[in-house]
């Protein structure tokens, strides 16, 4: 049984290394962040499988923390990266969002 978990963990680790190609080649920075997001999820799964292989229940807490904090990098990316909002983009009018006066242009 543990060997099966280990084989699954190795397989998932291989998918992470494959996913790295998208990070290296990915044209847009959005693609790279998505790849990082996928690695986070795969990391959580590997941790769960390892917790069964190495019989250490503490690894479930580690997986929990990873799952919890995967959002921080994504939110930081979306709020802090990429081109600032060119003034007057339709998105504002459509949602009736009060245009943030001192947002960075």
């Amino acid at each position, binding site marked *: *049984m543990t060997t*099966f*978990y280990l084989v*699954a963990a190795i*397989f*998932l680790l291989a*998918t992470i290394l*494959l*996913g790295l*190609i*998208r990070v290296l080649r990915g*044209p*847009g*920075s*959005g*693609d*790279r*962040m*998505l*790849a990082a*997001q*996928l690695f*986070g*999820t*795969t990391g*959580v*799964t590997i941790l*769960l*499988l390892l917790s*069964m292989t190495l019989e250490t*229940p503490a690894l*479930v807490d580690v*997986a*929990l923390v990873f*799952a*919890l904090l*995967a*959002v921080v990098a*994504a*939110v930081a*990316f*979306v709020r802090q*990266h*990429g*081109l600032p*909002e*060119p003034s007057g*983009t339709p*998105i504002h009018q459509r949602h009736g969002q009060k245009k943030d006066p001192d947002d960075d242009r």
Partner: protein
Amino acid sequence: MIANTLTVILILAGLVFFAAGTAGLLRFPDVYSRLHALTKADNVGLGLVILGLMLQAGGPADILKLFLIWVLVLAAGTTAAHMVAQRTWTHGEFESDR
């Protein structure tokens, strides 16, 4: 014995979805389609693996903790996918290096 075989089947199914997610991430042409590959690997792939592990889990506390992990990963996946899609849709792929 049944539980073991069920777990193996569920985890294998989960792995299939992870493989599909990675393949989609590499093969799909643009951001929006890659989003779907990513979120599939999240909710279904991880869901199946967690279901498989729940059969092996000891007490109800472990089962609930695994379920919480799955819910959190779902929330993370959907938020990231939505916001990236919204940003890319409003003003194009922000190419960071040509």
